[in-house]
């Protein structure tokens, strides 16, 4: 039983990331009708927002410390962050420590800007083209973004730690009445799960309870009629693209302490997120979220040593296997609506 709980917990944070990415993908697909293969790259850019921000606030100037020597025997140059000069060593250090949560504020305008530029600069030219063209151009864009990041940050993962207060693990086992140390769960993953829940809730509330959201939902259902009513639906859809980019970016920022960001991390999530969208049902937002968590937890179970011993390699195919089964029994996905991508 304890192993069961451990793997459910493990699935939650991965599921959160899948859900956030799939949510953005579905939003873009539902509004603009574009299959965006660059969405994983947006997740990666979000994670690098955390890296860039923590580098920015750790910017430092050099002072020469004559009492110490460097590896060549010359006097050692020591870096002193500007934050220490501005806010004093203590406050400066804690600001640097809280870089990842603070990077959220940095990433929102950046990701909205990136999303806006992507939609206006490239994707809008592909609305009337076939899906295959859209896939090719967005996939190409993803590769370009990846290579730009690699050129600046190198290929190795870059550690971006969570604040000191969130390092370490929470002993879930003791809380549930098990022996100590049986069910450990890192604090930051707990934070990530709640963060994802808040973001998902905010997106749904926005679509459900605002006039803007209502127009967007109406546009998703029948774009032409909304246009005939004199509403500039294109402009709203552009904003939705920027918002989807922002959701992917936020998912990336907060994921940075869980898996050290590298240029390739977007691709690792992209394919699985598409499976999540298809399993959830094309165009269904609740479906995307539900399928995200479901597949995250399933993947986690399949990686248990007991399961891998029984069925070697199952951990790498389980998601696709489940996707096949679901699509055979429910061809529109778990919560897919009739008529989406069917004409």
């Amino acid at each position, binding site marked *: 039983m*304890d*192993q069961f709980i*451990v*793997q459910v*917990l*493990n*699935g939650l*944070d*991965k599921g959160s990331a899948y859900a956030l990415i799939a949510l953005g993908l579905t939003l873009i697909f539902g509004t603009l009708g574009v299959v965006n293969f660059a969405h994983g790259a947006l997740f990666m850019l979000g994670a690098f927002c955390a890296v860039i921000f923590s580098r920015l606030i750790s910017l430092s100037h050099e002072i020469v410390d004559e009492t*110490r020597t*460097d*590896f*060549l025997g010359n006097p*050692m140059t020591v870096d002193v962050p500007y934050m220490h000069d501005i806010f004093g060593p203590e406050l400066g250090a804690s600001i640097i420590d809280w870089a990842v949560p603070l990077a959220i504020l940095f990433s929102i305008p950046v990701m909205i800007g990136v999303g806006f530029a992507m939609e206006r600069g490239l994707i809008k030219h592909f609305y009337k083209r076939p899906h295959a063209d859209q896939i090719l151009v967005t996939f190409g864009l993803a590769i370009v973004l990846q290579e730009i990041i*690699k050129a600046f940050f*190198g*290929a*190795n*993962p*870059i*550690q971006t*730690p969570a604040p000191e207060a969130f*390092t*370490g*693990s929470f002993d879930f086992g003791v809380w549930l009445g098990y022996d100590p*140390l*049986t069910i*450990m*769960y*890192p604090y*930051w*993953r707990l934070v990530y799960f709640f963060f994802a829940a808040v973001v998902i809730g905010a997106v749904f509330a926005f679509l459900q309870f605002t006039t803007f959201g209502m127009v967007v939902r109406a546009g998703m259902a029948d774009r032409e009629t909304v246009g005939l009513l004199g509403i500039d639906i294109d402009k709203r859809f552009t904003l939705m693209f920027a918002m989807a980019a922002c959701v992917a970016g936020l998912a990336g920022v907060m994921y940075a302490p*869980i*898996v*050290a960001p*590298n240029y*390739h*991390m977007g691709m*690792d999530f992209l394919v699985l997120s598409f499976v999540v969208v298809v399993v959830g049902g094309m165009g269904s937002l609740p479906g995307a979220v539900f399928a995200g968590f479901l597949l995250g937890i399933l*993947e*986690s179970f399949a*990686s*248990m*040593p007991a399961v*891998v011993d029984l069925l070697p390699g199952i*951990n*790498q195919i389980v998601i696709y296997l489940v996707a096949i089964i679901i699509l055979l029994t429910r061809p529109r996905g778990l919560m897919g609506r009739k008529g989406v991508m069917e004409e």
Partner: protein
Amino acid sequence: MSKYNVTRRGVLRTGAGAAAGLTLPTYLRAAAHSGFTNAPTGDTVTLGFNVPQSGPYADEGADELRAYQLAVEHLNGEGDGGMLQTFSSQALEGTGILGKKVEYVTGDTQTKSDAARASARSMIEKDGAVMITGGSSSGVAVAVQALCQEAGVIFMAGLTHSNDTTGKDRKANGFRHFFNSYMSGAALAPILVDQYGADRKAYHLTADYNWGYTTEEAMASSTEALGWETVNSVKTPLTQTDFSSYIAPVLNSGADILVLNHYGGNMVNSLTNAVQFGLREAQANGKQFEIVVPLYSELMARGAGQNIAGILGSQNWDWKLENQLGERYKGTNAFVKSFGEKYGFPPSQAAHTCYVQTLLYADAVTRAGSFEPCAVVEALEGFEFDGLGNGPTLYRAEDHQCFKDVVVVRGKENPENEFDLVEIVEVTPTEQVTYAPDHPQFSGGALGSCNNGA
């Protein structure tokens, strides 16, 4: 308007002429080559540096390339000469190789066997490289070594740690200076037992490919010989980035040691996850839980940051060796000085092994008096040398593996700067890491005979 009449006689005549024309230069070239692939004819010689310039090990590749450029400078008599002064064989004089100026071409292995073979082939066939060196993966090393054997050029392996490179996949034209999985196990096991006790239960997480397997085998057998028990070993996909579902069951498995047979990005991520899940603070079987990383690298340590503190592992070389352990490791400071002054930071062990391999090749050619692969093989086989940073070293004739001291290191608790992340715990002497050429972990391969190609 003209009209061409194609006749049978005309075709035959043209064909014969063309055949003769094609044969003539080949015949002349073969003579000039004195019977081996890419014999240098002019006043230059071309070496092929095949390193990962993209993919997960691109940072290692970049450092290897820096070292190769430095080696070429030193061979051509530019710069401060680096290890040329400390190398026990004083055959190299900074006048190129056999008086020919050294030039180089580079290829991108992408850490993929097929891409690495394609770039090596192109360097041999198009650029006329007489020797191929580099790489940062055993999968790549084994594949390129086999290609060089067929093509008749020398392969001086870069960073490759699998037993197989000089074990079951060894080749007469291939040479490895870097240490291997067996040596890591043999060097680490006594220190692990000394530090953590003989009554320990280990859990292995292993990268699911060639290098992972041999490292797990080496670590398990050498620690079991000293009393440890291996409770479980789990293969993890090479593409895995989040290891939480592999790490979470470790604490309940009855193990009190976690061995991470991972390298590069895999290792950075799995170690980070292990630390996040509180393994470093945990107690198991009444003992402090410990993590071991058999193959360390400075570049990985930089990636793992604070998480590496206190964790034991092994290295082929470290830039602090001569400063801390003295004269025995001479050459180290000379290399660190030339590298540090040119690039502004100390070299990694990947850079060191590549620099040394280039010098060893140049020296062997000089001593043999020829670029002919079989002559070079003969000069390198059984060659004993010193002054290249590892202390006295032997290139064993039976398997073309270098035998030298192995450095056991630990992640530093309070690093002073980003280059000072590991501390040297102990150096395991050569005798303790030497094995018979037909040792079970290396069996099933044969060097075969050297190939001059052409």
